[in-house]
């Protein structure tokens, strides 16, 4: 094989390598899929608090997820304006917790998650006697807070 041919082959191989260098990353990097709109960047100003169900019977356990909060911040959970616990938001500004309604009366309750005055969101749940018992989705974890101040007493077994 002449020297010129060898060089030509080397150049073709190098050209192919350069052109395909970015393509080899395709299996490892996700192509952007979300539309680029103002909603993508408005989240910082509007934290969102979502719940897995908005209605359930007393005794239900509701699973709340908050997003678009300041990352790594201590957030307070309020039920009808009363502080009942705290969670820390993760690096993306999300946090989740469970609200146990054991012993709570029927009616509407406002659940709020707030890191500061400018980052606060509220979600309502309705407790209806005779309704279905709501349970958290599989794998749901997080701090559990109670609507009513429930105290668990130790069980002392008599000899």
């Amino acid at each position: 094989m002449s020297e010129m041919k060898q060089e030509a082959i080397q150049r073709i191989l190098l050209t192919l390598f350069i052109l395909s260098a970015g393509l080899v990353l395709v299996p490892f990097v996700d192509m952007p899929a979300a539309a680029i709109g103002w909603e993508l960047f408005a989240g910082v100003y509007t934290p969102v608090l979502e719940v897995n169900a908005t209605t359930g019977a007393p005794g239900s356990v509701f699973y709340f997820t908050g997003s678009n909060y300041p990352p790594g911040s201590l957030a307070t959970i309020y039920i009808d304006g009363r502080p009942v616990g705290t969670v820390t938001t993760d690096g993306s500004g999300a946090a989740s917790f469970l609200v146990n309604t054991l012993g709570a009366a029927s009616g509407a309750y406002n659940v709020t998650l707030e890191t500061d005055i400018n980052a606060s969101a509220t979600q309502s749940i309705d407790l209806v006697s005779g309704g279905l018992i709501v349970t958290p989705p599989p794998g749901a974890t997080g701090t559990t807070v109670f609507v009513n101040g429930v105290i668990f007493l130790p069980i002392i077994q008599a000899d």
Partner: protein
Amino acid sequence: MVERFLILNFRNRTNVLTVKRMVHRLDVTAVAAFALPFVLYAFTLAPTLYNLDSAEFTTAVATNGLIRATGYPLYLLLGKLWSWLPLGGDMGYQMNLFSAFNGAITLLLAERIMQQLGVGAWARLAAVGLLATAPYFWALSLIAEVYTLHTALMAGVILALLRWAAAPTPLRLALPILLMTLSLGNHAATVLLAPGCVWYVLTRHPRLLRRWRTWAVGVGAILLGSTIFLLLPMRYAAQPVFNYAGQYDAAGVFQPANLQTWDGIWWLITGQTFAGQMFGYRLADVWPQAAGFGVQLWAAFFAIGVGPGVAGALALLRRDWRSGGMLLLMFLANAVFYINYRVIDKNTMFLPAYLIFALWVGVGYQLLLSWAVQQERPFPARQLIRYVMVGAVVLAAGFNWRLVDLSEDWSTREQAEAILRLVEPDALVLGWWDTAPSIQYLQLVEGERPDVTVINRFLISPEDMNRLILTEINRRPVYINNPSIELLQRTTAVAVGPLYRLEPRNPGPK
């Protein structure tokens, strides 16, 4: 009669020749670099007012108002001139089109820069095409924003420096200096270009700096360019109805920053309100941000441009370390600064880095094409590379269209109109960027609901806002997005569209 016919015939022939000469002189590549993206942007442009910063910029331009830090006086001035053109549509549409124009100008200038760097027409167009269809470059060419004007000025600075280097005179150096200073009046991030520019001037023709004329012309250019900042005190003096340079107090009275003092101007143009976000990550958190930038760059150049871009950067450094070093410094300064900038919309701020990378892609493509010259037989490598280059642009346009197309997006106007329909007379509305500026646009530009008072929560401290609400709630209807717990403890919130109406909480048992 015959004489008249001959004269007319001569005139027509002369006209035809003139047109032919003009067409001949016309650089088709340059025309395509501007016109094709501009048409693409016009098709996908937001048809009316857009949200967040866009609404703020549009309202400020329309009302001769003032914007938050860093003031953006050049944008306000050029936007005003642009709005006088008979373009049709509402003010929102016109300012969106201004971004499209600036995006297309950026691409035209990028094409000219690549020509200066010895890149052939095919490679130039292919590289420009990838930048034009990069998701964020495309998206920011469709809404009123300062970024495409920033990249257009940046490309102008680079091109002016390259032309100065080819025929160095003090007067030619004045142009990039003037453009840099003017560009500071559009975006403070222009300072990130300074290391590259200084490097280039110092390494290319250092002797020129020993001449007093160079310094005199340079200082003159800076002084001339700085006059753009005079717009801020002038507008302040006119007491604009739309003013985001200041703060509301607890009584709901706006206290504008005094832009007729040096302290006031300096506070505004240096962006001190955003100083906390600069270099806002701990060292351990920087790596994911850098990786995120890498992914953005990869997606911007549709994967296929990555290899040629890196190859082009290396080739340019090897061939011409002065201009290669200038571009590398500009790229690194922008990338490093914004990787470390802790804001949610940082992905919109990497356009200067993308512009530099596109220039490298052009150089890289040209490298591949020149390698292929000797291999026409039996393997048509050159032709194949051209197909790949063009194919990448077509695929990127097709793939990214669905991500960026705003041609049917009326959401901002609809949301603002809905809020103004829902709120009661003389209401006080408190919202963020996604709520307040768009309502103010409808009020101040289109004359809707002047009875409603709108306050952007960015312009009032949380404590003052709560005090204001608790005072005003007994006097008039008060609406807010996402009330805090302190407010919820003292008021009742009733959802009204995207807002909550706050009502005094009645004392007594629940």
